[in-house]
C-alpha cells in the first residue's frame, strides 16, 4: 500500500545512519574521556564519568524545552504531530534525566562520601524528573486521545515554566554554599577536558535525534492503530445490529 517516496527513503537512510553515528560518537567520546582528557587533580579518574553525566543533563533540558515548544505548537495548531513530538521528547528527556540522577550519586559517593547531596542542579534535575514522570502518568490515565494531548500540552508548558523557579528556589534554599563542582558549563575546564565534554554533548544530541527518529513514527503508528481499532469496533457494532 505504501510506495517508497524519496522523502521516505531519505528517512530510512537517516534511520540507518543515525544509530551508526551515535555509536561512533560514543566510542569517540569514550576515547576522549579516558585517554585524551587530563586526569582531574583532586577527584582522580572517577571524574571521568563527568563526560557522560553533565552532557546528559544539558541535552535533557533541551529535550524538555522541545516538549515546551511542541506543547505550544500543539495548542496553537492542533496538529497531532506536535503532540507526538512532545511525547517523544519527554520520554527521551526523562531517559537522559534518569542517567543524570543515577550517575550523579555514583560519582558523588567516592568523591564526597555521600550518594546524594541536595545541590541545586542535582535537586532541580530530580524535580524535573518528577514533573515529567507525572506528565507521562497523566497521559497514561487519560483515555480520550484529544484530551490526553491537550492535558499533556498544558503540563508541558506549566512544567517548563517551573524549571527556573525550581532552580532559583533550590539555590536559595541551600544557601550559597561553595559548589563542590567547578566544572560546570565547560568554561573552567582544561582544553583536553573540554574536548571530551563536547564529545559527550555531541553523542547525546545524536542520541536524542536518533530516539526522536524512532519514537515519532511510532507515535504515528499508534495513532493509526487507534483509528483502525475504532473502525473495527464500529464494524463489529454494525455487524451485530
Amino acid at each position: 500500500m505504501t510506495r517508497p517516496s524519496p522523502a521516505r527513503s531519505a528517512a530510512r537512510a537517516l534511520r540507518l545512519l543515525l544509530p551508526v553515528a551515535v555509536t561512533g560518537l560514543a566510542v569517540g567520546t569514550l576515547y576522549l574521556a579516558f585517554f585524551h582528557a587530563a586526569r582531574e587533580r583532586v577527584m582522580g579518574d572517577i571524574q571521568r564519568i563527568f563526560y557522560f553525566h553533565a552532557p546528559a543533563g544539558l541535552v535533557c533540558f533541551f529535550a524538555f524545552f522541545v516538549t515546551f515548544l511542541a506543547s505550544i505548537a500543539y495548542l496553537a495548531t492542533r496538529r497531532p504531530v506536535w503532540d507526538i513530538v512532545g511525547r517523544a521528547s519527554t520520554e527521551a528527556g526523562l531517559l537522559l534525566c534518569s542517567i543524570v540522577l543515577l550517575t550523579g550519586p555514583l560519582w558523588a559517593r567516592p568523591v564526597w562520601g555521600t550518594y546524594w547531596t541536595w545541590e541545586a542542579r542535582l535537586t532541580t534535575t530530580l524535580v524535573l524528573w518528577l514533573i515529567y514522570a507525572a506528565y507521562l502518568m497523566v497521559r497514561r490515565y487519560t483515555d480520550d486521545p484529544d484530551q490526553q494531548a491537550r492535558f499533556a500540552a498544558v503540563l508541558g508548558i506549566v512544567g517548563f515554566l517551573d524549571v527556573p523557579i525550581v532552580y532559583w528556589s533550590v539555590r536559595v534554599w541551600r544557601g550559597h554554599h561553595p559548589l563542590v563542582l567547578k566544572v560546570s558549563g565547560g568554561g573552567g575546564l582544561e582544553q583536553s577536558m573540554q574536548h571530551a565534554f563536547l564529545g559527550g554533548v555531541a553523542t547525546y544530541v545524536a542520541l536524542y535525534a536518533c530516539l526522536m527518529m524512532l519514537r515519532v513514527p511510532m507515535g504515528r503508528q499508534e495513532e493509526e492503530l487507534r483509528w483502525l481499532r475504532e473502525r473495527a469496533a464500529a464494524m463489529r457494532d454494525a455487524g451485530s445490529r
Partner: protein
Amino acid sequence: MSLPASSSPAARAALNPGVLPGAGREARKAVLVCAKDLRIEWRNLDNLPAMFFFSLLILVIFNFAFDFASSDFRILAPGVLWVAFTFAGVLSFGHSFDLERDADCIQGLRIAPIDPGSLYLGKMMANGVSMLLVELVVLPLSALLFGADLLPVAAPLGAVVLAHTVGFAAVGTLFGAMTARTRRGDVLLPILLFSVSVPLMISAVKSTSALLSEGTLRGEAATWLTMACIFDVVFVTAAYLTFEYVLEE
C-alpha cells in the same frame, strides 16, 4: 433588575454586568463563580469539615511522629503546618470539579457566556478561600498545640500564608480540573500538585520559619515572599491562559 434610585453608579455597575467594561465584567463573573461555589459549600458543608478534620489529624499524627513538646516550634511547625494546609487543599481542589460533574454542571458552565479564564479565577478564589478558612482555624489551634504565641507575628504571618495559599490554589485548581476527567484522578492530583509546587513548598516553609524566628518580614522571609509572589504571578497567568484547553470537551 430594579435598583433603588439612590444607589451610586459604582454600586449599580457592580450589580449589572452590562454596564461594565470587558475586564471588569469578567472579574465580576469570576466573583460570581467563586460565590456560587462557596454558597454550595455553605449550604451542604460537604468539604470544609473534611478539610478541617484532615489537617487537624495531620497535626496530631505529626505530633506522634516528631513529638512537638520536646522540639523547637520554629523549626518543626512550618513544615508540619504547610503539609497540613496543602493536603487539606488537595481535598478542595479535587472536590471543586467533582461538584460540576453532578448533573453535568460543567456543560452548563462551558456554554455560559463566561471566559474560561474567568471561570478559572473564580474556581481558584473559591479554593483559596476554603484553604484560608482552614488555615484561620488550624493556625491558632497549632499555636495551642505547640505552646507558642503567634499573636505578635499575626499580620506578617497572614501575608505569608496568603501569598502561598494563592500559589497552591492556582496550581491546584488547574490540575484539579485536569484530573477530574482522568482515571485515578484522586491519585494524579497530588502527584501533579506536589511535583510542580516544589518551589512554593520550599518558600512556604522557609518564609514561615524565618518569620517565626526573626519576628519580621525583613531579611530572609522577604526573599521567599518575593519568590512566592513570582510563582503566583507566573502560574496564575499560565493557568488563566491554558484553562480553556483543559475545560474543552
